[in-house]
């Protein structure tokens, strides 16, 4: 009888182990709902002994990071204006997980923006704000004492400061993703991307929208918006099938942005690959047609401002 119970417990343990492994494989097995666009036929010609391996794909969505966002705004001709950044005093206001995550992204974009315009003291203050939020979110390792010391010692060296920002963002996003908080990492990214959109739209003057490089750059964010949507949809439910309320809320809140982008036309042609130049950089030649009427831009600017101001309050 004892042997029977022992066997039963052993079987249960194996079943439990199987369920655990199944759960783990499901985590990396999120399939793209629209993954039929491009096949991997070229990769699948080999016949081999491992044919029974699960071919489920891991899907990644990559948004412009705060650093890339700030770079895009700067390269489009924006000038530095500190008044558009989120007030540092607001850092004390964020009490919910969603507001902390959104504003970690927002402050990181502000920090990147200040850094790219060589605003040393402002960069230091914004790094301090991001550190405070990261600590409150349990990611204190992302920006430690050593990081702050290194930043202070290299404040006038933009390359080092950019490297520090990149590393701290990598630390916080890797921590969140590897501790089953992918949805929080997604919210941080959306916050950072939205702040870039806010800074960009605020920088556009009263001139015509046609031929304005910054307006075109902002319109092109329609391409990234589709990635935002997919990323949030993918993170809407956890592994147990439970809805994440913060993500559902965010999806609903972004409807105004979706409507505004719907009035902006961005069409891209197929790409022609041009051989590498002397610096071994391949040029991808294509054309993009962008049509933004002043009314459509005004609608987008209002939608972005309303959303962003709701999040920083």
């Amino acid at each position, binding site marked *: 009888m004892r042997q029977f119970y022992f066997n039963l417990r052993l079987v249960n343990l194996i079943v439990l182990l199987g369920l655990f492994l199944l759960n783990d494989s499901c985590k990396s097995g999120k399939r793209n709902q629209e993954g039929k666009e491009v096949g991997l036929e070229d990769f699948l010609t080999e016949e081999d002994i491992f044919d029974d391996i699960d071919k489920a794909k891991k899907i990644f969505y990559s948004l412009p990071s705060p650093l890339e966002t700030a*770079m895009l705004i700067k390269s489009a001709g924006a000038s530095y204006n500190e008044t558009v950044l989120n007030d540092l005093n607001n850092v004390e206001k964020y009490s919910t997980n969603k507001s902390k995550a959104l504003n970690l992204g927002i402050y990181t974009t502000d920090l990147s923006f200040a850094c790219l315009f060589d605003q040393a003291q402002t960069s230091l203050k914004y790094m301090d704000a991001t550190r405070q939020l990261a600590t409150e979110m349990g990611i204190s390792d992302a920006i430690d004492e050593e990081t702050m010391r290194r930043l202070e010692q290299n404040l006038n060296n933009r390359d080092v400061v950019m490297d520090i920002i990149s590393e701290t963002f*990598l630390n916080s996003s890797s921590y969140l993703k590897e501790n089953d908080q992918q949805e929080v990492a997604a919210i941080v990214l959306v916050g950072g991307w939205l702040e870039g959109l806010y800074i960009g739209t605020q920088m556009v003057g009263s001139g015509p929208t046609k031929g304005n490089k910054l307006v075109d750059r902002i319109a092109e964010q329609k391409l990234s918006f589709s990635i935002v949507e997919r990323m949030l949809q993918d993170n809407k439910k956890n592994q147990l099938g439970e809805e994440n309320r913060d993500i559902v809320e965010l999806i609903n809140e972004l409807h105004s942005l979706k409507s505004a982008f719907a009035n902006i036309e961005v069409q891209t042609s197929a790409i022609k690959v041009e051989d590498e130049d002397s610096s071994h950089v391949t040029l991808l030649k294509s054309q993009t047609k962008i049509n933004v009427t002043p009314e459509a831009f005004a609608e987008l600017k209002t939608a972005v401002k309303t959303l962003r101001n709701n999040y920083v309050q």
Partner: protein
Amino acid sequence: MKNFLPYIVTLAILSSCSIVVNAQCKGFAKKLCKLELTGYVHDGNYHAAILTEGEEAELYKTFYSGQNYRLAICGSEALPPIEYQVVDSYRNVLFDNKQHSMNSTWDFKLESSQQLKILVKVPVSEKKTEFPSSGCVAIMFGFQDK
């Protein structure tokens, strides 16, 4: 409660193994793969996962005109060289590292902004082993400060 103890202990051990493996993946991306971006600024995004021989991954990203980008795709030592393709929304293959000596990096710039898809595959090793190998695969992007 006593009856559940073996399960709890087993789950705790397995969970801690998973955390250790993930932490190694983060360290791999940060300390090894990031080196492939030398000369470029890493954007700070983290895209890495444990993949097994035969497994595939896809990444979607918008790339902007006027920027010089470097794409780096690295696999840990346990894995054979990683295969990858970059395709546009018209399904044109823009880059296939099998045609370029299995290069782990690709430098490119765009005349106009485009959404691209990166298809990654861990090929099956030619070495006959009892179990397929697993390891960390990281996809990283760098750009140049102008």
